[in-house]
């Protein structure tokens, strides 16, 4: 029986608990034994990306303390996974702390984004979901470019019963969130969001799906402000759905 530890990034924990709950339902349905180390807090992505590396150092240390013993760590947020896998080593090195560097090197290769875990570790693309709706997929920048998840999320979506997938025009364009970028340069961020929202509407889907809740928070915020009926859902929520299937 596979075992995995849940890494639920702070903003998912606080703002979008249903995404993490859905991830739990999918993984348990597939027979994975899960644990949630309650001591976890935040990976420090926002700090690292904004240049507050010194503030992120204790968070890096805390992360490897919490997850050092885990077999595999699974998270519903590509950008947080990317931070752990790509930024942590450099931070530990610059901190001049060999013990921390060793802990980081031992822990971070075991951290997976949700779709990577399903396709690579479990070897599953059909999770037995049923979701009879029109869906379009936004390939979050960090998922595609930093983690290289490729079409794994699409493989998973294509296997969902009843799901109708529509292509998102200019899909690979950034939605304009960029963490503190949305706060520091709100006008450019809003202009990028406006284009993304227009593309989503052009796809004529009921739901936008992504493997990163932070992009969805941004895109969803734009869609809601325009009072459109299009919803955002994390990949895990679609995969957890069993609409019309007897439980």
């Amino acid at each position, binding site marked *: 029986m596979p075992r995995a530890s849940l890494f639920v990034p702070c903003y998912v924990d606080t703002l979008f608990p249903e995404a993490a709950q859905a991830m739990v339902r999918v993984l348990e349905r597939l027979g994975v034994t899960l644990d949630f180390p*309650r001591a976890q807090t935040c990976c420090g992505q926002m700090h690292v990306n904004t*240049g507050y590396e010194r503030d992120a150092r204790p968070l890096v240390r805390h992360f490897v303390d919490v997850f050092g013993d885990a077999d595999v760590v699974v998270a519903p947020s590509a950008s947080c996974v990317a931070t752990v896998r*790509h930024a942590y080593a450099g931070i530990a090195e610059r901190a001049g702390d060999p013990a921390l560097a060793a802990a980081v090197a031992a822990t971070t290769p075991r951290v997976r984004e949700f779709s990577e875990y399903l396709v690579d570790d479990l070897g599953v693309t059909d999770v037995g979901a049923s979701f009879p709706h029109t869906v379009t997929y936004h390939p979050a920048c960090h998922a595609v*470019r930093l983690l290289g998840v490729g079409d794994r999320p699409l493989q998973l979506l294509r296997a969902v019963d009843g799901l109708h997938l529509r292509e998102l025009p200019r899909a*690979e364009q950034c939605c304009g969130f960029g963490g503190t970028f949305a706060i520091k340069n*709100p006008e450019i961020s809003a202009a*990028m969001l*406006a284009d993304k929202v227009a593309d989503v509407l052009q796809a004529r889907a009921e739901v936008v799906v992504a493997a990163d809740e932070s992009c969805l928070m941004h895109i969803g915020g734009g869609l809601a402000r325009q009072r459109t009926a299009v919803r955002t859902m994390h990949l895990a929520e679609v995969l957890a759905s069993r609409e019309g299937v007897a439980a």
Partner: protein
Amino acid sequence: MSDARIPLPFHEAAPAALEDGQLRRNLAHVTHAIRAKRADATAELPDWEALRQAGKAIKDHTLRNLGTYLRRLETRVEAAGGHVHWARDADEANRIVRRLVAAEGVREVVKVKSMTTDEIDLNGALAEDGVVAIETDLAELIVQLAEEPPSHILVPAIHKNRAEIRRLFLDAFDLTPDQLSDDPAALAGAARRFLRERFLEARVAISGANFAVAETGTTCIVESEGNGRMCTTLPETLITVLGIEKVVPTWRDLEVFLQTLPRSSTAERMNPYTSFWTGVHGGDGPRHFHLVLLDGGRSATLADDVGRATLRCIRCSACLNVCPIYERVGGHAYGSTYPGPIGAILTPQLRGEPRDGELPYASTLCGACYDVCPVAIDIPSILVDLRRRTVDARRAAHPLPAADAVDAALRGAAAAFATPRRYEAAQRLARLGQAPWVRKGVLRNLPGPLAGWSDARDLRAIPRRAFRDWWRDREAARERGGDPA
């Protein structure tokens, strides 16, 4: 770099640029067109990724042995009858060029490939001696006539449309409205007639260059219009200003870049004109050749472990064309010769930090620039590293008070995330504290730095139960043997 054109900070310049609808349409149109063509032009080569890695390796090797190759270049150029001058910074480079121009006693010089000279504001320096520098690249000429800095590395007039260009030409070339339409061919023809006269009269030309080959002391310009060739062959004296990172060891190395540069920049298999010149030759081409080797912050960049990769850049501009930020605000908002992603990392390093701490923040770190870069510069990582330095430098200068609201929020958040107990307390506090801003389950009109968010987007209110609460309750129910939630 020159301080003469100290621009607005990015966060102020960018919104102003955004409001210019025509600018945004022009930019979107051109960048998307080049973007698509570039993708085709690179996909055509089965070994594109290998070429990209080769380009990276050649540049890294050259940079590690830069002193050796520069000295070799100097020796070969001198052996071929040219003169080499070393310039530590912009001032020194300008002084050298001014002296050389003054010795020729001319009032007008023609110029091509002006980016490096723009970096040091050579035109401004020459103007102090009453020397007019005429840009001969069509797009450079357009922005020069508009009295604006270039807005793009490769397409400096990317932000101008035909009607705007026609108006500039009517004035500059002294034409009546019926003498010039806004047909592109007519516009190019008018510029051509104007430039021909300049070329034939000019005794001194000033150029940049794309590459310099150390083994033979040869300088290289790639271009589309042929004006560069005019500049490097017609005048008696040719002065080339070259950033020291542009040297390559051998002709074989050049082969890689002559494939990757045109495909990355103009999406052409080969650029229409590739000009090489080596020193001087009796009765053919310039009689005097001067090569000014410019450091201008490059040695300092070279000394930096992370930043060094920036010097691999071959100025193809592919990263500008895919950058969603550049696409929205154009080149001027960056306030630097080099705009877009490369500008955001190159400019602060050449100028010396912590000045220009804003440019590295002009990115969402989406990574599109890294994907297209023909020498595989990991621009996002360098951006993050420069942000780190900016923050560290600011803190060293002002240890205690937070610089701004974002600074305060990030420091506060880091403290709150330090332990699970504090984290959960902060979570509860946020849930309670949001009440004044919640309307129908949505956070509206958020205060302070968050206003920028809530101006254009909704944010759902923080739900009653966090994931960890759900998990705890579920575990508890399981232990009681009850039905899991």
